[in-house]
């Protein structure tokens, strides 16, 4: 595993580091909204899923959806977090046409979930990658707002309230994220956890997982001082990048934003605390609202709702029903399959990947299976920009190929050729090997003959290898070449050594 080296940006006056905390809005995977019975179905006609409560008709009252509370608790347990048996809903007051009540019901002072943590696996191009612990500050439940549509008419804004009142879990991290790649990896890991728990569909395109990133920059060493003292004065002024739903954009936005802040500071200016939006087309962030225009939300406890008091027994019941989480799965992969921390992390970062791997590895050499899945298959999929679900090679087909390697039917090198043919749609590995006569030559007599011929034809090399045994490789290459790559490498080695007297 690679060390976690600080991500640094070179400025004109020296090096800078980035510090980030993330707020993830994860839509609860529930059929009904947080405080009304209206449907949460995606893709319905505008304003089709709106109850009297969601439209804030006079005299309508919110009633908490127990299922949503349960999902928040499940998620909290998945984040190894404190579940607060007492929590409370507050009103966040502001006017906007897509906010019918004139306030959002959220949990401000007393969230349902307190501090927790997650292990984040970060991929490093060309290297094994590393892991870091990101502390979670809190998770709270809140209502989503509706959607304002500004581009249907040049003179009017249309409002769709289908999302109004949908339950969101806002998951707030501590400022423990230190690079654009770490930010993306954090979102990926959180997504894997909520998907494993079944508490959120994690579909970034549908917007049911969105990230706000608080970015600030500081000089090397300042962050460590902050961690020691907990004093934010050691860190720079932060800007909040709102509503990002792509790993790529998250990284681009952070990088741009960090450079923008460094430029301001180095130019003698001051970073204003503000909310910014990333424009992926222009590749830049722009101001959405400054601190001066920040709303005074006038939070106060919602008098329409009683405090949420949760029985410990219920929490324990939910705990018992938790599925295997990515970190537990990773630990199991390390232990049961003997995989490295990194390979296990990659394979368990996504439930589908883990499932695929387990199918490939069942009854086979697990390390070999892990190599083939992470290197060859994922390498191919990444290159082609394909999802695992679109893989042209199924888990059982890949397993079949690995079995042929394990029982010495083919060598690893030949297997790569077979794999290419499998991708091309030529069928199962065994059939390809049969059709193209790729079976490994383990007949020692045949190999011996080839070896004898090569020794006889190359007296100079024979003389050389006596002094320099490492030149044996040259003989191996010649034999493999002569056998069309089909000779069993182990047998070739053994015979060569015997014949050359090494």
């Amino acid at each position, binding site marked *: 595993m690679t060390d976690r080296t600080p991500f640094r940006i070179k400025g004109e006056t020296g090096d800078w580091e980035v510090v980030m905390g993330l707020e993830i809005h994860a839509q609860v995977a529930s059929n009904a909204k947080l405080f009304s019975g209206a449907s949460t179905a995606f893709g319905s006609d505008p304003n089709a899923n709106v109850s*009297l409560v969601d*439209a*804030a*008709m*006079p*005299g*309508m*009252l*919110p*009633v*908490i959806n127990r299922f949503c509370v349960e999902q928040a608790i499940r998620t909290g347990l998945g984040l190894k977090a404190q579940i607060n048996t007492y929590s409370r809903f507050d*009103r966040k*007051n502001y*006017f906007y*046409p897509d906010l*019918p*009540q*004139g*306030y959002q019901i959220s949990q401000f002072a007393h969230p349902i979930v307190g501090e927790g943590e997650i292990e984040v696996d970060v991929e490093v191009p060309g290297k094994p990658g590393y892991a870091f612990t990101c502390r979670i500050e809190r998770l709270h439940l809140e209502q989503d707002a509706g959607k304002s549509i500004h581009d249907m008419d040049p003179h009017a*804004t249309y*409002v769709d309230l289908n999302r109004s009142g949908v339950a969101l879990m806002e998951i707030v991290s501590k400022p423990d994220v230190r690079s654009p790649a770490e930010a993306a990896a954090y979102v990926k890991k959180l997504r894997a956890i909520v998907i494993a728990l079944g508490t959120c569909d994690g579909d970034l395109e549908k917007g049911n997982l969105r990230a706000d990133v608080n970015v600030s920059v500081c000089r090397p060493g300042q962050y460590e001082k902050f961690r020691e003292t907990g004093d934010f004065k050691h860190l720079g002024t932060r800007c909040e990048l709102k509503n990002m739903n792509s790993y790529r954009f998250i990284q681009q936005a952070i990088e741009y934003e960090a450079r923008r802040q460094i430029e301001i500071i180095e130019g003698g200016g001051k970073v204003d605390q503000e909310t910014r939006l990333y424009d992926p087309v222009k590749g830049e962030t722009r101001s959405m609202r400054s601190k001066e225009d920040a709303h*005074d939300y*006038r*939070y*106060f406890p919602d*008098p*329409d*709702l*009683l405090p949420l008091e949760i029985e410990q027994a219920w929490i324990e019941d939910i705990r018992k029903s938790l599925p295997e989480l990515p970190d537990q799965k990773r630990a199991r992969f390390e232990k049961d399959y003997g995989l490295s921390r990194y390979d296990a992390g990659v394979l368990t970062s996504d439930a589908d990947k883990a499932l695929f791997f387990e199918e490939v590895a069942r009854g086979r050499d697990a390390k070999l299976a892990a190599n083939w899945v992470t290197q060859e298959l994922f390498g191919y999929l990444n290159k082609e920009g394909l999802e695992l679900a679109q893989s042209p090679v199924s888990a059982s087909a890949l397993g079949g190929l690995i079995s042929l390697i394990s029982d010495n039917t083919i060598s690893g090198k030949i297997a790569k050729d077979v794999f290419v043919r499998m991708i091309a749609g030529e069928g199962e590995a065994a059939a390809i090997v049969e059709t193209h006569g790729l079976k490994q030559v383990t007949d020692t007599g045949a190999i011996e003959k080839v070896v004898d011929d090569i020794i006889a034809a190359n007296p100079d090399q024979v003389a050389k290898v006596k002094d320099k045994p490492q030149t044996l490789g040259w003989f191996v290459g010649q034999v493999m070449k002569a056998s069309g790559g089909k000779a069993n490498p182990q047998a070739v080695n053994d015979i060569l050594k015997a014949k050359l007297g090494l």
Partner: protein
Amino acid sequence: MTDLTALTLASALDGLKSKQFSSVELTQAFVSAIEKARVLNAFVVETPEKALEMAKASDARRAKAKGKVGKLDGAPLGIKDLYCTKGVRTTACSGILGEFTPTYESTVTQNLWDQGAVMLGKLNMDEFAMGSSNETSHFGNVINPWRRKGDNQGLTPGGSSGGSAASVAANLCLAATASDTGGSIRQPAAFTGTVGIKPTYGRASRYGMVAFASSLDQAGPIAKTVEDSAILLEVMCSHDPKDSTSLNIKTPNWQKDVRKGVKGMKIGIPKEYRIEGLSEEIDALWQQGIKWLKDAGATIVDISLPHTKYALPAYYIVAPAEASSNLARYDGMRYGARVEGGSLTQTYEGTRASGFGKEVQRRLMIGTYVLSSGYYDAYYLRAQKVRTKIFQDFVDAFETCDAILTPACPSPAFAFGEKSGDPVEMYLNDVFTVTANLAGLPGIAVPAGLSASGLPLGLQVIGKALDEAACFRVGGALEDAAGFVARPEKWW
């Protein structure tokens, strides 16, 4: 034939049951009375056709040999405009709701219709229930059917349930629904010689009631007698899963408590309610009440509610704070009145400036201010702490007594404009009633006598949480002792 509109709810139900008259006859009598009393401005929507249709259906139910008959079957009632009524305009007497007509029914009114009651129409009130004189209504003030002796000056019926109180006092309905956030049932009842009770917070559902201050609002009836108020309250109250603050408990039979008497009960007299400048007339009424209860076999105990003086200021922070948020939904976007502006902000400003009346705007501004950052702790949080203290005062006091007797209001009904110039003077009207809202306790106002000027005066009984029974027992005893039979002379 006797005047059917002069009947109490209890006797009208008896008459319907024994077929002395039909619901249609009874309803027609009220429809005619309402038409003739338009000068009182008690109704903002009259629904005579709907009423007669409902009456006909009731008569049909009663005509069937084994017809299922409700507890209020055939009884014509008035509904405060705060309650959403399906298909009937509901505006809480605010301009901002325009011609808003709900597609849904409030739980309280649904309970009434389920028991066969007949709706005569919607009753006038202070805009969004903010007021103590009914002068803030978008539809103009209600006129109290009572007048001072030898004086034709118009008087307020109190507020915010002014229409409810006036219509009951003027025999325009058998009884009416009302609502009470700081005294809006009890004060108008006292101003009109009627009985009004606010039950324990959570007894009645707030679903479909236009919200003023959610943690204080509570439904209740205004009726002609203590018994009538018990009959109506029983039907209004219910557990409602659609209101998270609704209590999941059974509603008792309170009607049987009314004539139980007070023998053996301990009645607390809070010294802090002897406020500075309390008029002799009100004090004398209070002393009279104490004597009546003593004579009826109750023990009188002196009690202390030390935080009483902070109640009114705390109330006028908590209620506007909640209102400022509850009324944010009236933004001209989805329903009600809308004033188009050049920008979104201008549309908001224009809509709310023209839709809300002055008193509502004042309270929204107070509420916005006390919740704003930097002031929250000093005002809202502090007011909530005071609220806890007031609640604790009552808990302590109820260690030594079963119910508390106080005046209902500091004065009899006043004239229009008399107090509307100074909001603080107007707010002082609630001084005896807000404590029960802040503590969530039941309180009943019962007419107990007439002022020197010939206007009704009321006494208030505050009970323990969920002990409406004590309010009804003491209220019934006061009613018996007072023998209050005065009615406003019909001048309209």
